[in-house]
């Protein structure tokens, strides 16, 4: 009997595209972006960029010191987040949690911490700490706990049950299965996610200063607000260099562990 070619599977792509285009159109109309003159904005922007002519490195030692503080804030924030997330993720993994209620509650706490932007946390902490790097560290670590906790818990859930059963079958109890089956299986995920957060946190710490939470953002905001473009340019170069360096560093660590 002749079978022939099976019918072409129905594609939903045109429908999706149409819906997305419609949505974008609605947004553009709602935000009244049609009145926006793209050409004029382009001219404005290139004029603005042209003001950043020559960086002035007069205060370079000060900038480098504050950049160091920025990296320190990110490092402390990420480390605190890592320790708390590693201890908490067990409770938030469905297959390892001692009780479904514990699982739900810790999961929700992690999601909440992840959902609130670190800048919002920073603003709250500045209200209680005053201006300074402490607010930045706290804000970054709270957001990081949420992000890392959730991602570790999801990794622990993805580990195949046989890995745990193998240890359970030779009499390991809960802690031993966790330390000798759970964490080794997700070691790569842990390192990857932590490095990603550290990268992200350096970037975040660089802008936390805009709301007053210490680091290189403080002089940057000042320079931009006071139209000192050559200072702002120099600070931007310092930030750019540091961020590229940290990204390169974490990339090479990741490659070594892969």
């Amino acid at each position, binding site marked *: 009997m002749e079978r022939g070619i099976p019918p072409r599977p129905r594609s939903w792509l045109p429908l999706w595209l149409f819906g997305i285009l419609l949505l974008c159109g609605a947004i553009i109309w709602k935000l009244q972006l049609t009145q926006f003159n793209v050409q004029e904005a382009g001219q404005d922007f290139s004029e603005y960029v042209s003001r950043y002519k020559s960086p002035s490195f007069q205060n370079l030692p000060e900038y480098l010191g504050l950049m160091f503080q920025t990296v320190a804030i990110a490092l402390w924030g990420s480390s605190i987040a890592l320790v708390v997330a590693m201890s908490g993720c067990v409770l938030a993994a469905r297959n390892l949690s001692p009780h479904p209620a514990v699982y739900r509650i810790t999961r929700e706490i992690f999601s909440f911490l992840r959902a609130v932007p670190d800048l919002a946390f920073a603003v*709250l902490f500045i209200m209680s700490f005053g201006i300074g790097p402490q607010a930045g560290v706290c804000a970054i670590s709270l957001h990081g706990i949420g992000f890392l906790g959730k991602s570790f818990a999801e990794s622990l859930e993805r580990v195949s049950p046989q890995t745990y059963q193998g240890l359970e079958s030779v009499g390991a109890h809960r802690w031993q299965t966790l330390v000798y089956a759970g964490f080794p299986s997700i070691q790569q995920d842990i390192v990857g996610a932590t490095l990603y957060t550290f990268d992200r946190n350096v970037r975040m710490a660089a802008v936390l200063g805009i709301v007053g939470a210490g680091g290189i953002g403080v002089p940057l905001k000042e320079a931009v607000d006071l139209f000192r473009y050559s200072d702002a340019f120099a600070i931007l170069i310092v930030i750019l260099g540091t961020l590229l360096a940290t990204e390169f560093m974490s990339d090479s660590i990741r490659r070594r562990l892969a």
Partner: protein
Amino acid sequence: MKYAWPTPNGRLPRTVIGLGFGTILALGATAATAGMEPGRFRDAGPRFAELIGHLVTPPDWQFFGSLGAGLLETVGMAILASCFAIVVAMPLAILMARNTTPSLLLAYPLRVLTAVMRAIPDLLWALAFVAAVGLGPVPGIAALIVTTVAYLAKFHQESLDVVALGPVEGISSVGANGLARRWFGILPQAVPDLVGQWVYSLDSNVRAATILGIVGAGGVGFDLSNAVKLQQYNRLGPLILSFYVIVTILDRLSDRLRRRVT
């Protein structure tokens, strides 16, 4: 009884040990710089508790109308920026990936360019765009587009790079070359990854858009910085809760979408 880590020699990998030690040393060296003084934390504790107490007040019901409008604007900004960024990032990634680029001489400069674009945080882009074109959602959308293009281009490039060679060889062997090889051999293999990255970009753009308003680049962040400056706790509480609700809804949606694709 002897415990062993499940590696050939039964120990933690050396890189992990080194990283751990290095981190501890670095933490010690930077403690003072990061302001980790117990005194500051003792003082701040009660004040923070008081602040949380303030947040637990009946909300300002009149504020909910403008809060809704602000959230809508925030999400709208994120959606527009993501859509636009996807359209720009796709061709860029094809030019950047080892196996799809017409020439590595083109790929490397593009990779450096996107690395530089990525290195500048979106809030700084927003700060620059606001200074250049004025307040409102447009500079915010522009800032989101710049960072999202840079990220998506890198993620896309990595997904394209690791595509399996078999299928590509398969269609090359029946005569596909150039565009056909890329379109039918390489891209389809990467699509599940790409869709996941698109959804992720929307997710992260919504989160980024909530704070862009702090520098005046549109969205609900403007209300946030106002509420903080004027100490309107009955607005601050609903604001923070609404961040949570919106991000959670998006999380659930994107989880479902991703599961359908992969």
